[in-house]
């Protein structure tokens, strides 16, 4: 039987065009960072890690190499070893009873018994293990002495896949790490006991160690575990303990609450509790400030708030007499100006700094302190509120548009502003507080001169807030009914206030704009193949414009197909095509979006993000540092002309009718082994038929638009996957027993379409 080269090629692709389901998936990295200038081992837990060959950490000065892979042996392998061990054990006992017997115990037997024991203990089976973090890879990480402290990202790669990123931190403090956690394995404990080992420990697991401050302590929390660290401190020291837990792994899909909720407690040498923290304001990661009452030894303890635990409950606890900023004022400034920023916090060497506002947007404010804090830069005129605008009578008069920098300094305090408005004038009011680290839970009210309420808002849904689960900033858009004086009242919904309750109030006309997020943030492509990418448009102030997407400074050979978010749409799925040659390491790809809004061209970079699930149900777009793409596999010249869209696009689809699209086919008897499927089919659109035409050199794809469901005017992309049609019976059985996502052997470039009105 002659086998077509294309069949071989596609079959060999196996994990081909995009192999994301079999790509490594990281659940945790432990320790989640280290000290600059040191070399240390790191354990990464996850799924599909056994073929991992490389580890990549973003930024310069940090290198990682793979040392080892581990996966619990399967039950059959274990049973075979156990049975063999039993035979050897019986032989050993028989030989002891009858030393002169023919069945003598030999040195080879002894060696084999030891080998089996060692093999089982090194890699024991674990039926209780969570498959999502069953594999582990050990890395050696070397950090140059001159790398700056901060956050990086780590990804693991194998020839056909690149993992999701995880946060990896660099500090300039001494680091201490407890041994990496082992997944609970009660059956192994019993087995060890049978082999004559120690009985399994009972009761709540505890870990205690001595540390010297300042330090970063790394740990993992297992079920019920409390980790305790003893340290010496002197009277009057202002100690800071900051836990990073939720910030390392923001969301757990299969846990409620959907992250590791770390709790910190300080005890004195007699075990008396002196301080306790469960969070820092609205942030689940606690920060504990502790003024040492007397010289002596103390203990800082960390555990989960409801005593859960698993391997991905990873923490970094930074401890010492360290400078920490708890609040700044103002929270931002105007582009092109310099802003004097007042700092509040503990152990700060300076009470203020000057920030040069060069670029609009929100970026971390850094200085001689431990924690970067967000600072935002805008183009609008700014002012600082007066201290007396806490009543309607003393409302501060504003000229719009403007950004007011203010603070709700006292509990229950309300801030009042007034402005002159015209009939029909559109007004937007927006508070920036939570998003900039302020504890303020704002509400905003617009009234006319008679006190009649025109608009009110407490919270609004801002999809850009990937890490905030209680986004409390306010926003409204309103149209003024008549000319006159209008009042804005701003308050804390919970009636709180204080020197850190700062805000920025944007008040003016609508400024339509958008932000972009690109998902996924890791992609592995075969040379010359395409894979789908999704870009979300986070629109604001009524922006409805179409957004064109393009690559920015991409390496040669990368291209996009169907890269456009149409007017009034919030996302687009399109395809990224890889060059015909592989890359040595991940390439950072940047996608930008541009739109003409009110006559001006606006361009924004699509921020890479992970689409993460929290507690089984909620989804968040969590920004990450890079959109990393690897290209693997040798170039395939015979595929160079395949999978090209030959028909004119966008394709017009009419409800109740069909439309045909021609695509260049790969050589060989393709349709006998593979079929095309429409991925994430738009509502009412289906792929009705695929037929070879032009003597098999082309395919004709027939798309059908449902009369009732295809929405006239809708525009988007049709993305077709090439999937295996037939499998061997053994493959079918395996697939049925352990079903996984079926990987596409190839993917056609996105085919833009629109649904006509008729």
């Amino acid at each position, binding site marked *: 039987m002659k086998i077509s080269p294309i069949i071989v090629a596609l079959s060999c692709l196996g994990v081909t065009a995009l192999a994301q389901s079999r790509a490594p998936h990281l659940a945790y990295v432990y320790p989640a960072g280290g000290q600059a200038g040191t070399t240390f081992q790191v354990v990464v837990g996850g*799924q599909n890690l056994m073929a991992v060959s490389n580890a990549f950490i973003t930024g310069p000065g940090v290198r990682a190499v793979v040392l080892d892979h581990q996966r619990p042996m399967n039950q059959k392998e274990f049973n075979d070893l156990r049975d063999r061990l039993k035979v050897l054990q019986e032989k050993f006992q028989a030989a002891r009873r009858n030393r002169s017997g023919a069945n003598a115990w030999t040195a080879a037997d002894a060696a084999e018994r030891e080998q089996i024991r060692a093999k089982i203990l090194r890699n024991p089976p674990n039926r209780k293990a969570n498959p999502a*973090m069953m594999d582990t890879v050990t890395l050696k990480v070397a950090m140059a002495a001159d790398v700056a402290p901060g956050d990086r990202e780590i990804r693991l790669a194998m020839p056909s896949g690149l993992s999701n990123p995880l946060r990896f931190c660099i500090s300039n403090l001494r680091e201490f790490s407890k041994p990496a956690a082992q997944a609970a394995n009660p059956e192994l404990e019993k087995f060890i006991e049978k082999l004559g080992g120690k009985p399994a420990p009972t009761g709540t697991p505890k870990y205690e160690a001595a540390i010297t401050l300042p330090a970063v302590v790394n740990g993992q929390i297992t079920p019920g575990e409390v980790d305790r660290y003893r340290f010496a401190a002197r009277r009057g020291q202002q100690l800071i303990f900051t836990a990073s837990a939720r910030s390392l792994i923001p969301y757990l899909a*299969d846990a409620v609450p959907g992250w590791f909720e770390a709790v910190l407690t300080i005890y004195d040498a007699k075990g008396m509790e002196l301080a306790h923290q469960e969070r820092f304001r609205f942030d689940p990661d606690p920060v504990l400030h502790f003024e040492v009452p007397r010289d002596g030894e103390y203990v800082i303890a960390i555990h989960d708030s409801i005593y859960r635990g698993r391997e991905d409950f990873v923490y970094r606890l930074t401890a010492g007499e360290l400078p920490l900023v708890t609040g700044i004022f103002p929270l931002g400034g105007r582009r092109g100006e310099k802003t004097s920023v007042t700092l509040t916090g503990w152990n700060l060497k300076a009470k203020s700094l000057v920030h040069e506002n060069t670029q609009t947007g929100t970026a971390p404010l850094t200085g001689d302190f431990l924690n970067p804090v967000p600072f935002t830069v805008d183009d609008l005129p700014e002012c600082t509120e007066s201290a007396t605008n806490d009543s309607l009578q003393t409302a501060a008069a504003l000229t719009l548009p403007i950004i007011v920098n203010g603070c709700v300094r006292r509990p229950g305090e309300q801030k009042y502003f007034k402005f002159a408005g015209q009939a029909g004038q559109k007004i937007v009011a927006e508070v920036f507080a939570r998003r900039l680290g302020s504890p303020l839970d704002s509400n905003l009210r617009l009234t006319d001169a008679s006190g009649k309420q025109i608009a009110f808002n407490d919270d609004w849904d801002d999809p850009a807030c990937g890490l905030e689960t209680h986004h409390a900033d306010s926003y409204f858009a309103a149209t003024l009914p008549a000319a006159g004086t209008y009042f804005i009242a701003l308050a804390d919904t919970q009636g709180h206030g204080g020197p850190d309750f700062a805000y920025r109030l944007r008040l003016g006309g609508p400024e339509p704009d958008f932000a972009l997020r690109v998902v996924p943030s890791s992609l592995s492509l075969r040379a010359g193949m395409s894979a789908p990418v999704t870009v979300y448009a986070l629109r604001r102030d009524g922006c409805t414009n179409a957004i064109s997407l393009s690559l920015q400074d991409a390496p040669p050979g990368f291209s996009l197909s169907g890269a456009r978010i149409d007017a009034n749409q919030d996302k687009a799925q399109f395809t990224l095509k890889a060059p015909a040659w592989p890359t040595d390491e991940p390439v950072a790809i940047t996608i930008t979006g541009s739109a003409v809004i009110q006559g001006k061209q606006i361009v924004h970079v699509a921020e890479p993000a992970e689409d993460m699930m929290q507690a089984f149900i909620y989804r968040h777009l969590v920004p990450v540092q890079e959109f990393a793409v690897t290209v693997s596999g040798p170039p395939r010249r015979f595929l160079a002309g395949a999978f090209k869209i030959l028909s004119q696009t966008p394709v017009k689809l009419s409800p109740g009718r069909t439309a045909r699209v021609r695509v260049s086919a790969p050589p060989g008897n393709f349709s006998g082994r593979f079929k095309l499927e429409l991925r994430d089919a738009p509502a009412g659109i289906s792929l009705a038929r695929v037929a070879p035409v032009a003597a098999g050199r082309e395919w004709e794809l027939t798309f059908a638009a449902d009369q009732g469901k295809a929405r006239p005017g809708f525009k988007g992309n049709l993305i077709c996957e090439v999937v295996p049609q037939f499998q061997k019976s053994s493959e079918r059985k395996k697939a049925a027993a352990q079903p996984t996502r079926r990987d596409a052997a190839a993917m056609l470039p996105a085919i833009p379409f629109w649904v006509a009105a008729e």
Partner: protein
Amino acid sequence: MSTNFFDFGKQRPHLSRREAIRRALFAGSGLLLARHLTFSAFAAPPTGRARSVIQIWMWGGPSHLDMFDPKPEAGYDYCGPLKSPIETNVSGMRICELLPQLAKQADKYSIIRSMTHGNNGHETAAYIVQTGRQPGGRLVYPCVGAVVSLERGYDAGYQGLIPPYIVLTEPQGRFDEAGFLGARYKPFATGGNPAQTPFAVEGVVSPGITAQRQKSRRELLHQLDTLALTLPDDPQITANTQAENQAYDMILGDGAKVFDLAEEKPELRDRYGKSKFGQSCLVARRLVERGIPYVTINYGGWDTHKNNFQAMQRQLPEMDKGFATLLQDLADRGLLDRTIVWWGGEFGRTPKVQWEAPWNGGRGHYGKVFCHVVAGGGFKGGQIVGASDARGEEVKERPVYPVDLIGSIYAQMGIAPTTKLPNPEGLPTFVMPRAGEGIKSAGVLKEIMSA
């Protein structure tokens, strides 16, 4: 005259010291069950066709696409490896290939493929599906079992030895089944495992204690009970003695026998399957045979967030065997006509498979559209009610809200929708919500209710 007929005396009876001692003496062995001595059906026959309900509560939320609403045309990302549904003995009615026994019984049941409530939380959805009400407001409503217990139980003249509302084997624990009706209408959960011998029903069958030993214990108790010897004519003591006699009848007589599956032919037990679920189905049949109005089989393991298809391969054959044999057995004994079998859970599962880690081929919660199955008790078999769309993501036609199904069950039981429910606040409350309550309804299932 007050319209409040809620009897707080029944709810929280005055407990004398003597009563407390009596309860303490008997409670350990479940003797309190002995308030009602003989097996009997209703004192006054209800007007509906159905006398009993067996509810197979698929808690966790069973996957509609992998059981009674297969969608092989939706593609692998929706149906996974379960892409070859089988024909049933009713033309055009296809179900999952892992349910071959149920395929042979399809003429006995109807599939509702358009159940909907839109809620994806276990507790809330379980409350909505089992009460027909939305959570919140001033009242916690009773579930169907508690209402049937009220309307067909002791208050309606039921005098069976076994409580009128039984749960096999563990309470679901997602919400208070009795709601404002109070503890009297909560189900009696058997505990134990009917697949084991003996089926150690809590307070009724004590594993490891023979009947002879139980009798010896009773004699010892009598020797210690000098009060009864001193005051043989005291009415309270006489009542206690009667209660004790009833209790021992329960433990050593017919009460225990209903749970003794050794009375069944081994072949029949095998047909049900030797699993906990299969044998629970057999116990349920024995209970309704004896006139118990409401039996719930709490069947867990359907919250298949992870490895859904492995769970289906493992669990569906067990469910298929037990459920199918129950239908056949009830029919063979002439019980199906007066017994409603109600199968379903709090919601369905996400039609699109979650292949990514940590789910690895799992399905999430899905309240937008899901399946329930009803059989017997006046419900027609071999029918499909409603439909979901091509991917099982939306109701395509004839939405069925939980209240519609519950109302249909009540109708078959002869419980009028306007039947008042006693509630502690004296509010006019009825078994079915009134129009003003804002509960979504598309009407009772007339299309599958026999005239």
